[in-house]
């Protein structure tokens, strides 16, 4: 039953994963709105259901029933393709993340790290194509910002990933989590976490690095010309990206599914992962509620003049550590 092993089981897993992620997305919007409201001395959604818990459902229904509007001046095939291109990488990046002992979400490929880098690389295409095909000045400026920003921040991001890879000695994320680390390794990793997190903020276009869609300047940036479900797809992509990157950070820096008794009771693995992801998502929202936005040129300067040299230094020291201490 090779084809069963190869196709059917992974397909079922993938469907479950997509379902979980989309539900997660829906409740992430609720989580964010509630938290933001508390940061801002407000209540947040509290009308639809208990604690506003049905608000995501109401939003989804609203998005489905929106009229599909395709402006005349857009490049139609690309315009329609772009939202899908934005969403798919956010979902497939999950394939290699281990969710419990010995269990990756879809497949334990031996190039997990490269998979993450590759998928992160194509994420920006959706945004660039959306901005380009919209034929709108705001969209164009947003797309230009986005392409420059993502390309720039992938460099330090990649450097930090390479460092972790060198210390772990394996391309597989499953091995990374299950392999043991020495105490100095943890400390060295956690030193990098704040900078890695900054790169992730830029990579996911989250505030304060939400320059491609800066509401104050570019109305909605690359998605200005999108409405209805097409807009919703971009929205989903951004939030699923947040979940995915949080899971990656949890896996790389905080032991992924690991926790007390997670080795004995395998169902505890996903629970621990979920808790870690929620805490990291809280960080995203906290940053959004409290920090202003740097200007575009300042953002680029910060990347090239600070993050990149720092990444290089970190890689060099990690290499030395990996050779002499492991």
């Amino acid at each position, binding site marked *: 039953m090779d084809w069963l092993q190869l196709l059917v089981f992974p397909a079922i897993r993938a469907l479950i994963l997509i379902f979980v992620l989309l539900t997660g997305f829906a409740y992430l919007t609720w989580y964010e709105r509630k938290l*933001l409201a508390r*940061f*801002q*001395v*407000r209540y947040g959604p509290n009308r639809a259901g208990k604690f506003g818990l049905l608000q995501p459902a109401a939003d989804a229904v609203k998005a489905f029933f929106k009229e599909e509007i395709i402006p005349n001046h857009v490049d139609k095939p690309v315009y329609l393709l772009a939202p899908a291109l934005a969403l798919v990488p956010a979902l497939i990046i999950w394939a290699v993340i281990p969710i419990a002992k010995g269990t990756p979400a879809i497949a334990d490929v031996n190039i997990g790290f490269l998979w993450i880098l590759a998928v992160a690389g194509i994420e920006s295409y959706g945004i660039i194509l959306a901005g380009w095909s919209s034929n709108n*000045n*705001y969209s*164009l*400026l947003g797309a230009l910002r986005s392409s420059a920003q993502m390309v720039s921040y992938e460099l330090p991001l990649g450097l930090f990933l390479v460092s972790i890879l060198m210390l772990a000695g394996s391309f597989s994320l499953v091995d990374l989590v299950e392999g043991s680390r020495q105490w100095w390794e943890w400390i060295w990793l956690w030193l990098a976490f704040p900078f890695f997190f900054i790169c992730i903020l830029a990579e996911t276009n989250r*505030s*304060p690095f*939400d320059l491609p869609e*800066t*509401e*104050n*300047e*570019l*109305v909605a940036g690359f998605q200005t010309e999108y409405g209805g479900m097409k807009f919703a797809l971009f929205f989903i992509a951004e939030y699923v990206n947040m979940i995915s990157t949080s899971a990656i950070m949890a896996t790389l820096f905080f032991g992924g599914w690991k926790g007390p008794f997670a080795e004995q009771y395998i169902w505890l693995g996903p629970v621990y992962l979920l808790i870690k992801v929620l805490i990291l998502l809280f960080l995203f929202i906290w940053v*959004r*509620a*409290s*920090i*202003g*936005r*740097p*200007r*575009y*040129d*300042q953002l680029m300067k910060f990347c090239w003049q600070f993050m990149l040299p720092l990444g290089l230094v970190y890689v060099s020291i990690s290499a030395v550590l990996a050779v002499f201490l492991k």
Partner: protein
Amino acid sequence: MTQATAVAEAPANDLALTPELADAVVGTWAEDTETAYFIAPDRILDVLAHLRDAQGYDLLSNLTCIDYQGYGGKLRADVSERLDVVYHLYSTRRGGGSVALHVRVPADDTVPSATSVYPGANLQEREVYDLFGVKFDGHPNLRRILLWDGFNGHPMRKDWHEAYYEEDAKPFRSRHPKGEYAFHEDKLPWAKNTTYPAGWDPDSWQEAVAYVPVSQAPQHENQPHLDTESIVVNLGPHHPSTHGVFRMLTRVEGETILALEPEMGYLHRNHEKIGERNTWLMNMPFTDRLDYLNSMSNNWAYALAVEKLAGIEVPERAEYLRVIMAEFTRIVNHTWSIGFILNDLGALQTPALYAIEEREMILDMFEAVSGARMMCNYMRFGGVVRDLPEGWREQAAYLANDRLPRALDELDRLLTENEILKARGRGVGYLAVEDLIALSVTGPMIRAGGLAYDIRKAEPYGIYDRFDFDIPTLPNSDIYDRYYIRLLEAMESVRILQQALRDMPEGETLGGRGGYTLRAPEGEVYGRLEAPKGELGFYLASDGKTQPWRYHVRSPSYINLNALGPMSVGYKVADAIVILGAIDIVLGEVDR
């Protein structure tokens, strides 16, 4: 942080012109109210230049026009031409009162543009051209500003009537012919109420895209081999950050602004024409709608002008109440403005909501005295409309002594040392304070440039000379200083509030009947005060009837926009948004 503040002096009573310029004055008139100097149209630029250079009148505060067709009063100084262009000049260095120059011209005639002497005449001359049809010779960009190109006629002229014109004075008789309510427009056939200028076709019309001259060289000129192309980005009128329906027409190269021109008028309702038909008192609630955040200051400015014209005394307690309300308003405005500067910087909503929390407390106080949170309509000619309710003073004292200082300190702690605020604000939107004054900018913006010009000290009105407070100034004239100056001013307002609440005597709050049947004596007057956004002035002319002959609002939001283009050129699109936010405009006041 504070400088020696400008001290009030007696207003100039004599122009003291040089002998060469003496023949430029064709008449003087001081019989009714303020001295008016009538200048020959072709000499006005010489007189303005002389007053600016030799006598230090560096601020062209107000420039407007009056149509004297059908005027019922006396013929002033034997000058009989129909339109009267009025200039009010002040000195920011000396303080003190104004010099009022008048230029009388026949309809459709031209007057030399004052923009070569005072660049700040730009927007005001465009408004006069738009509403009165006076052409200004030498104006760099003389287009309609509040109305669109397809508007037929110049509405502020006395002989211009709108489509469903009824009468010149309210209350209109037709509205209640037999005690029933009827709209005049219901009796007319539908349509046929739109007219266009002769030879103007709405179908073939295309908006002319005009730009202010680029005052700074674009940055790519260092690399002439790069083949670059600039694009036009239309920020607004429907845009999240223009604070209403306001449009910034920008030409950008990459993200750098090469030219920016403000376009307004989307909220224009011809406040001034309506004001001419209202009775004197009916305009009081109407001023609330100008700068709807600061209705108390607007009320006061209008009351101040009318009281000056009619010589009405204000009781002691009412003066205190006015100061208290005005200073509360200033705190409301400044916290709001700080919150939204931060909002424009991308700190979405959190600082704004923290700032607005204090505003809510103050609005509750306003509601308690006036019945309305925002449209207060609290002041009357000769005082305020009603005394305080029970317990108000204690609550206000709690706010002024306890809660507001704490809240302002908290904002200070949260924001002032913030790295991103500094990175975004320092050195952005710079314009030297001399340029700002030449552009007729007033209010916190020039104090953030280092000039301690505040009408509360420079030409005290009400009872401001009794309070101990400073005019804070900051040296850098950038966005960061414009943010910080507002916080400092709000702190000074708290000081004034504490003193006023402590010293306020008992007594009556309204001298006379509040002007319900006011017939202001013949004459003209320019009354102004330091509104939170800058100098708010009312220029009123009366011919002794129950309606004002002319009712002009010198609105700080509108005139401060003179500086938007010059301040934004050379910075990024993201900066232009914040520069606009730091000017602090309210569209109700810009478009009137």
